[in-house]
Each structure stands twice: as structure tokens, then as C-alpha cells.
């Protein structure tokens, strides 16, 4: 099985939220208690039991109203900083699946203290990991690795009616992504761009400034590897260090 990647074309998203619900269904995640907070976006944020969330943003850009939808989820980074952070504290709490590249948290994450978890969350350039306050287990999108390793598409991709959610071999997805981006540019979407395509396995296509979709749509410089983490990394065995430097 080759290296896998999601291609998420936000221009084809109608925010039907099939992906959000299918994720909960396949992963047997409970619904959280929500209230209408003046938005269609609900739950309001990712949580221990919400791995996938469609974010809604109303944006006026070039004098025109847009309603942008962003199907937020773990990017399954090629070099996942969260993995480095977690492994600084707990061994065996993160697996990066060799076949797919999926970044998977295990039950061992429960050994992280809340403060250590905060550090994990801060190390994620996309603000993805969430901890269960009771069990302290940390969760996020699994790339439906149980489905994928059995030849099925991730639940969110399977359910998507419009072709916004795509999944497959990394090379094929990147080529699809680049092709669609240049097509959109040709159609006059000057800001059409892929987000962190080289560094992630969930490549988003947007047609406006990425920040208007979501604060963490692209890797944030003020998160990722902070000073404390960098220092701690220096004290770790060489393997982890090299990976850390490569990322820096």
C-alpha cells in the first residue's frame, strides 16, 4: 500500500456535513450537547469526540459575499510535530502507520498530564489534538486506518456527494490537487492555492486568503515547535533530534 493522502477541495464543499456525521458514525463517537450559538457551525469546535468539523465563515472579499466551508481535520503531517512532543513524554502513544502515513494516537496518550497535553496541542501547527478530561486519552482523526487497510475509503470521503473529499495514493492526490488549483487559476480564481501540500497528508485547496477560512487552515508559526520543546528535543536520542531539525 502506497503512502496515502486526502485532497480536500473546499471549492466543491456544500457544507452538507455528511463527512462530519459519517466520521462520528464509523468511529462510534457520541454526539456532544450543543446550542445554536448564532452559527450553522456545530459543534462549535473539534473535541475528544469530534474528529471532523465543517467550519463556516461568512467573508466579504472583493466586495462580494462568500460563505466559505472548511472541513477541518488532522493533516497527518509527513513529519508530525505532535509525535515528537508526545514521544518526549510517553513511548508508544503515537504510531505513524508505515503503509499509509496515518498518524494514530493510542491509549497510552492517557499517560500525558494536562500540562503535557497542552504542549502537545501547541505543537500541532493546526490545533487538532483534544484530550478527554476524564480518561486523559488524546484523540483526533485516524485516517479511518481500519477502513483504509481493508481497501475502503475513509468514511468522510465515502459519503461526500460532490467530490470535495478525495483520498488515495499520495502522488495521485497531489497531481489531482495541482491540476484543480491551476484550473481554478485559469478560471480567474487568482488566490487558488494548496495549503502545506508538501508537509501534510490532508491537502486543502482554497481560493481566498487561507486565514479567512480558519485561523489554523495553514501551519501557524506561533505554534509548532516552541522553545521549550526545542530545548527538550536536544536532550533526546539522535533519531528524534534529526527528525526535529529536519522539521525546523
Amino acid at each position, binding site marked *: 500500500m502506497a503512502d496515502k493522502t486526502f485532497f480536500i477541495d473546499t471549492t*466543491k464543499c*456544500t*457544507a*452538507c*456535513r*455528511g463527512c*462530519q*456525521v459519517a466520521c*462520528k*458514525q464509523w468511529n462510534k463517537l*457520541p*454526539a*456532544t*450537547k*450543543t*446550542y*445554536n*450559538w*448564532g*452559527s*450553522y457551525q*456545530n*459543534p462549535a469546535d473539534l473535541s475528544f469526540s469530534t474528529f471532523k468539523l465543517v467550519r463556516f465563515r*461568512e467573508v*466579504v472579499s472583493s466586495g462580494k*459575499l*462568500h*460563505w*466559505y*466551508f472548511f472541513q477541518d481535520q488532522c493533516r497527518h503531517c509527513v513529519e508530525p510535530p505532535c509525535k515528537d512532543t508526545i514521544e518526549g513524554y510517553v513511548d508508544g502513544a503515537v504510531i505513524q502507520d508505515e503503509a499509509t502515513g496515518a498518524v494514530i494516537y493510542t491509549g497510552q496518550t492517557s499517560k500525558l498530564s494536562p500540562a503535557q497535553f497542552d504542549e502537545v496541542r501547541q505543537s500541532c501547527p493546526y490545533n487538532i489534538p483534544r484530550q478527554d478530561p476524564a480518561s486523559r486519552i488524546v484523540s483526533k482523526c485516524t485516517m479511518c486506518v481500519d477502513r483504509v487497510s481493508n481497501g475502503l475509503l475513509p468514511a468522510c470521503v465515502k459519503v461526500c*456527494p*460532490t*467530490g470535495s473529499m478525495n483520498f488515495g495514493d499520495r502522488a495521485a492526490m497531489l497531481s489531482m490537487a495541482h491540476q484543480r488549483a491551476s484550473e481554478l487559476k485559469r478560471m480567474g480564481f487568482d488566490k487558488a492555492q494548496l495549503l502545506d501540500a508538501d508537509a501534510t497528508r490532508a491537502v486543502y485547496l482554497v481560493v481566498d486568503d487561507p486565514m479567512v477560512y480558519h485561523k489554523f487552515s495553514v501551519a501557524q508559526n506561533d505554534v509548532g515547535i516552541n522553545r521549550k520543546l526545542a530545548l527538550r528535543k536536544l536532550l533526546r536520542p539522535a533519531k528524534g533530534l534529526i527528525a526535529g531539525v529536519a522539521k525546523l
Partner: protein
Amino acid sequence: MTNHWIDIGNSDCILIMGSNAAECHPISFKWVLKAKEENGAKLLSVDPRFTRTSAQADFYTALRSGTDIAFLGGMINYIIENKLYNEEYLAYYTNAGFILGRKFGFKDGLFSGYNGKTHTYDKSQWAFEKDKEGNPKKDHRLRNSRCVFQQLKKHFSRYTLDKVSAITGTPEKDLIEVYKTYAATGKKGQAGTIMYAMGWTQHTVGVQNIRTMAIIQLLLGNMGVAGGGVNALRGESNVQGSTDHCLLWHIWPGYLKTPRSSNVSLEAYNKKFTPKTNDPLSANWWGNYPKYSVSFLKSMFGENGTPFNDFGFDWMPKADDGKPYSWLNLFDAMFRGEFTGFFAWGQNPACSGANAGKNRQAFAKLDWMVNVNLFDNETGSFWKGPDMDPKKIKTEVFFLPAAASVEKEGSITNSGRWSQWRYKAAEPLGDAKPDGDMMVELFVKIRELYQKEGGAFPEPIMNLKWDYDTDGKFDSHKVAKEINGYFLADVTVKGKNFKAGTLVPSFAFLQADGTTSSGNWLYCQSYTEKGNMAARRSTVDKSGIGLYSEWSWCWPVNRRIIYNRASVDRYGNPWDPKHPVIRWTGKKWVGDVPDGGWAPMLLADGKTNPKTKYPFIMKPEGHAHVFGPGRADGPFPEHYEPLECPIEKNLMSKQFINPTVKEFGTAADARATCDPRYPIVASTYRVTEHWQTGVMTRWQPWLLESQPQSFCEMSLELAKLKGIKNGDKVIVESARGKIEAVAIVTRRFKPFKIAGSTIHQVGMPWCYGWVTPKGGGDSSNLLTPSVGDPNTLIPETKAFMVNVKKA
């Protein structure tokens, strides 16, 4: 739909108006986006509110709810003024060239023949002038001043940009953008389609909204072609099927008419409803009416129906002349205590019906109610609902738990008229039963009682043919075969011999002499000696335009795009050679099943082919109706204000509202137009996350998590005016009721400039109800009016007046 879902992908321009397809028909966007990506199709979204559909549109603009005829009337004017129509199509396939009689006229918002006392028209004044054979006189050059085209031009010349803009609130430049983009499909080889739903139908001018678009489609030559058509997006997976099989009161299956008390015999009934033509070139397909009505009666009464008792015609219910029995009428009668028992079968009128508060009060007048549903709902539990005192309510309610769609076998007919067979995936839970099983048990019991006790008029029950069960259970195959129909005797039809007891191969073989049965002539061919056509699952598309003719089965006779003989010019060459629906080879048609196999209208030398038939075979004159003299409220559409509206006069004429509307007038039918207490226009709608009234989805935690509570969307400007902040609780109130909701303050609503003043609009979903979830709010249908379109009596829930204040 005249076309079908996949066909949307063939379009060059898609107008989504009167629907919110991305949210309410999410799968349709697979095809909408395909058209955009592969054909470079333009997507236009016209809606009072910027929706998830608008988010995908190339161009979006807003109009005030209830002003669609003005908006589209301006488009007709634009098309004619700029000569963007397909003249050959218009002149030869539509009645645009027909000459109108001298009695026809239009003045001050009224057509000729209006009777102010009865609020009805004498439609005979809208007749065509006839030649000596009795056929309409025609001018194919469309120049005669009394021809339909010239009258259309005159009528819609009044819909000028400034006037339309003043009525709709849509800026003139936006009107031009929509008109120009859509009218470009009038070019030969281009196709434009309309996707509409309840946003057009649920108005007192609902039928005329759709008529206006039908006229546009005929002007542009968009009917019958791939990527064109008039496409109603049905609100449930099987609404098309239930309509085909006469869910509504005014029809028998297959759109045969419900007899009236004045239809004293089968002969009189058939005579009344069988149209005639003297034109040898008109196929006049409804001329076959008696074959279908008699075959239907044979399905109803089997051997008990004979030529000597009119095949049981007298056993069928008759409607009183002039009296409607629609949804609104039934609930009004219930409210007045005119009947005592009610089956609420697979529905939730306490939330789904317009003026739902009236319905809730009406339930209290009943002796009994049987609520057949998957879950408890606001209808079955009305007696313990808001403002109800259970001690004072006598109604006895029975709840029968029903099996879900995946727990039973049968067919579902989608919007594209495809009858698709489905299989049972799981056993029903607990005591739940399939609806069919309940009906079998119920009928057997009713017949037993009639047998034992007699009673008034037992003949319809005792003579009914009822052999649809196998071992006491409903058998969907037996029903499907009866719907198709059988030969009841050994007969020879069209030179072919058929054995008694075999299935009829298609409706062309049905007979009026009692030798055939068919529960629904339109579905004759769906289940034949070759097997269950609806169960076919071939993914081969020989057409190249996505017809997938051997996937399931489609009425009529598996024709995937109806009126397809209008997709070609008079020689039989497709208007669009890239997307041919059918094509004449010189000897026969190839492609889709043609609308009749007759040769094209012209021979190679340009002379009329005497063997041809006009393409619109369901019309007596064979021509599509630009001029529609059958409608209750006029042969051309005309803008009238909704029954509740924010302005004091109709800018188009002296006639304020639809002159043929009738109101119910009970205390529960209060109406407040141009009333300072209710200054804000309101509309209701659905959301992706909930299904209809939410009976099935409000119990589903994941869906509830994503849309937990009723909301009211409003503009920043209105919120500021009312001191409302995003997320505040608000009270929305109409003359009929009030609800609490969460304010969504959004740029997606903007105030309108209507006739110089600022008019605000809000919108609310109708999918919530007090039973569950607690604190989720109640249905916005508590606010909507129970007044209906004069043709269909569909209620005007999409344009009414409210006030909004902070809770």
C-alpha cells in the same frame, strides 16, 4: 422533473430559484458541479437569503419573497426585446402562433371573464379562434396582433427593469446579469435548466410561478433537450411516486381525474375528460383516456366490474361539483368538527401543515386519531402539547409503530420519474410493521365487519379486488404487477396475441372494453413478462448523455427526457449535436424512447410530412402552452402581491392579490397585510441536517448536534434596529402564532429597497417541534397562513408577515 438528476450535468446554465438544492437536495450538487466543471456551466442562485446553494453560485442575487413572477416576467420581456428566443421552436412546437379569440383581453390586472362575486373566471373567453375544421387558427410568422406571441409580448412589456426592481428589491444590474446569462441558452445547442421546489410552489401564485418559467423555457427552446427542462425537486424520496399513484384528492392513479357528482355514468365521465382534436397531425394522447380509466376500474374491482355495471364506476367516490378536498380543506373541515376520525399516516401535520396551530386545535375536535409513524410526534401527542389541557380533550389517540423504508421491499420513484426497486435490509424492530401489512390487516377487518353488520353502501368494500397478500402479509410484487396490469382475456391487440393472465407489455396495449387491467397506466411496462423493470441495475450508458436506460425504469415507457421530440428541429436533427436526446436516421429515431415514433415534421424537401405528429403529444392541439387557458387564475402569469405583504399596492396593477384566491375565514385564519404590527417579510425552509418536520432526525443525536435548535436568520441592519445580537433568543410572531428561536444575525440577509422604502426579511426552518429535543423550539408553521393557490390549494408558507423582538 421533465428530465432527471444526472441530466443536470448536461446543462450550460443552471438557475436555482425557489429551491435551495445544495441544502435540501444535497446529492443533486454532484451533477450541478459536474456541469460547472465539465461544461463550464454557469450557476445562478436567486433567493431572498444567501444559502449554501448561493455559496457555490457564479452569480447570486436576492429578491423579496413572493415576487418571482415579477422577476421572471422581466426575463420574458428581456428575451423578447432582445430577440433571444428560438423562433422555429416557438412557432412550430408551441401555441405562440395561435390566434386568440376577440373576447380575450387583459385590463387593470384582470383577464377577461372575471366574476367578482364568485372570484372565478369564465375561461371560455380565453378560447382560440378556430378555422373551419375547428382547429386553432395559426400564424407561424408570429406577427398577427392577436396571436399568442404578440399578446405575450404586450403583456410582459409592462415588466420593465425599473418596475421589476421596485417590486422585487433586486438591483437592475443584477436583473440584467441573470437575464443575460440565462437567456444565452436560447442559442441553438445551448441548454438551460431550472431547479425549483417549494420556494416556488408554496405561494398563492404558485402555479403561475412555474408557468412563468415554463414560458421562458419554451421561448429559449429548452424543453425536451438534454440539460434543459422544468425540474421540480421533490421534497421526499418517493413524493413523485405518491403523486403518480394519486396521493392527492383530485386524481386517480396516472393523473386520471377524480369523478365529480355530475359525472353520472362511466360514459359521461369518459366523455368529460377525454379531449378531442380535429387536427390529424395531433396525437392527442389523452384521447386514450377511456382505455386507462376502464383498465383502472378493472384493477379495482376485478371480475365484479363488468360492462353492465360500468366496471364498478359507481362504487368509486365522487367529489361534489365545485368543492375542493385538499389538505387545507380537510383540516378546515376537521377544525369545524365536520368529521370525527383521522389517520395521520406517515405525516406530522402538527408541524408540517401551514397554520399548524389551527391543525393542533382541529385534532381536539376528533373522536379518534390513529398516528402511524416511526416515532412519537407532535401530532400523536398534541393533547399534551403547549396550550393544551389534556383533561378537556376527548380525542382518543392510537399509535401504530411503522417499519422504516429499509425494513421493507418495494419501489420508490424519484424526482426524475425513475421507479427504483429496493430490498429489505433489516427486520422491523419491536412491534413495528410495514404500512402494507397494516393496510392488509385493516382491510380484512373492515370487510369482515361489513359482511357481518352490513352498513351504508357496502358495495365498494365487498366488491373490491383484494389479492395483494401472501400468507396474510402484504406482497409488494403482487401490487407492482397489478399496477402494471394484466390481460384478462385471450386477446389480439395491434396484431399480437396475448394470453389471459399475462402482464401487459406497455400502455399502448391497454383496452377500454374490460379485457385489460392496470392500476396505473403510466406504470404499464414497469413489471412485465420480462420481469421487474424497476429492479434493473445496468450501469451501461449507451446514450452518452447519462440516460442509463437499463437502470431501473422510468415513466412513461422508460422515456428519460419527456417532450424529447422537441429536442430536434423539424427535420429530426438535434438542436444540440453534442448532447442528442434523439435523432432521426431517415427511417427511425435513435437515442431515448421518443415521444411517439412518428416521423419528423418535415420531409427532406421541406414539405410537411403527412405522417408526422406534433411533438407535445399530451396537449390536445399537440403544441406546448405558452398561453395556458386551463389555469384558474389566468392564461398568462401576472404579478400579484402575497396575501400578506409589506406594501400597500401592487405596482403592476390595481389588482392587489390573486383575484381567484379563496380564504377560509375561521378565527384561526387571521391575516394581517400591510399591518404595522407585522412589518417584516418571512419565509420558511428546511435544513440539510433535518428531514421534513424532523420526526426522524430530531431523535438522531449526531444530526441534532449539528442543528440543535430553531433559529431565525436576519440581517445585521434589522438586528441593529431591534437591538438583537447574534445568538440572542428572539420571539417571532405573526397574526396566527408565535415561536421562540435563536437569532442568527448574518450578512446573508440584506434589507430590500421596495418601492422606495426599506423592507426587512427573516427566515426560519420548520423542522423543529416541542416533543424533542427539549428547548429545541417549535415549528415555524405555527406562523404560516392557511391560504392556498387557487389551482392546487398549496399553502402560501413562503411569503407572509411577522414581527421579531428580543425574547
